[in-house]
């Protein structure tokens, strides 16, 4: 598909989403959430389309899009891992899990693998400290995480995991 064509398609999609919210600029955040759901991240062209169809300056849209951690301006992986490093998870070993995931995926927190398979980031408290350490795998909370459990999770998601055991 040609570049122009896909941008046009994107515009139409954005227009649809905005209309769903009655073109009300008070709904910028839910609109951006839907746009992100559609494209898996917030592409620049989509943000520009939101700006023009909502008649809100792109500088304002950019402020909102960069303010919330839930929004991403770069493509995110097919699988998303968020590790809690809030105080409770931290003291229960989140740093060990973090360095293990970093090693296995060869990814620093906040980054996405070049093959767009994995995104990994850390968050500060998910409000479920009793379950800590918590790893959120594609939106699903998995509690009482350990290094070996993360390896299982990663294997299940199709990642070859090299451990000392094998």
């Amino acid at each position, binding site marked *: 598909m040609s570049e122009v064509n896909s941008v046009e398609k994107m515009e139409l999609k954005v227009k649809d989403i905005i209309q769903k919210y009655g073109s009300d600029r008070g709904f910028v955040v839910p609109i951006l959430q839907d746009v992100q759901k559609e494209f898996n991240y917030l592409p620049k062209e989509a943000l520009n389309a939101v700006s023009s169809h909502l008649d809100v300056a792109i*500088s304002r849209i950019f402020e909102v899009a960069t303010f919330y951690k839930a929004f991403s301006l770069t493509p995110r992986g097919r699988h998303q891992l968020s590790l809690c490093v809030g105080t409770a998870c931290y003291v229960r070993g989140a740093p060990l899990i973090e360095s293990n995931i970093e090693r296995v995926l060869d990814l620093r927190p906040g980054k996405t693998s070049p093959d767009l398979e994995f995104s990994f980031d850390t968050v500060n408290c998910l409000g479920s400290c009793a379950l800590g350490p918590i790893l959120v795998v594609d939106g699903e909370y998995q509690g009482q995480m350990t290094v070996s459990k993360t390896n299982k999770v990663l294997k299940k998601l199709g990642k070859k995991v090299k451990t000392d055991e094998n």
Partner: protein
Amino acid sequence: MVNLTIDKKKVQAEEGSTILKAAQSNGIEIPTLCYHDELTTSGACRLCSVEIKKGERTRIVTSCIYQVEKGLIVNTQSERVMNVRRLVLQLLMARCPESEIIRELAEKVGVKPQPRFKPDEDKGECILCRQCVEVCEEVVEVSAIGFSYRGADKAVGTPFVEPSRACIGCGACAYVCPTGHIKMEESDSGKERVIWDKTFKMVACKVCGRYFAPQEQLEYIGKKTGVPLSKLYTCVNCR
């Protein structure tokens, strides 16, 4: 009118006015950095902090925002105020180590950089007061710049950190910036101006020949006011 006391002086101020304004119109000086008369007050720098007393309670407030109240007793020089001001300046100095304006303000009250506050290296001279964003949105009405990210990463700039299509190169942001963070440069010949990484062609005055304004700014003014461009191509001095 509201009656209040500032530094033992009985003063009157209009209802809805701020402590800062009341002080200024009575010759009492309160240091400010981010305050700008014509723009929405942001209260970002906290340099204008003063102590107020209501009944038995005293507390520190931001004088550029805090509205005058009947019977308020304000102290702009107390030890508590000076401590706050010194701390604010220490923090501002750590954020913007290169800022001359902040250094001068600090020197006035004998504040030196503190080893306990590690100087930032990536913040330039920006104190995040948002005055530039305000002027661009409310006065110039182009909204070319804004903030991005938050917390320690918060910064001012154009969307996607690239030259903005909306920017008309007027330089209002650089003009209102209290610290001089925003750089606007003109080429030696005066034919070009660069601001926010965008290069603007300047227009030479039809009468005196001096390069006086960016083409895009004049076009924008023409569109907004309906004044024909041919008229706008003459600089203010020659009109």
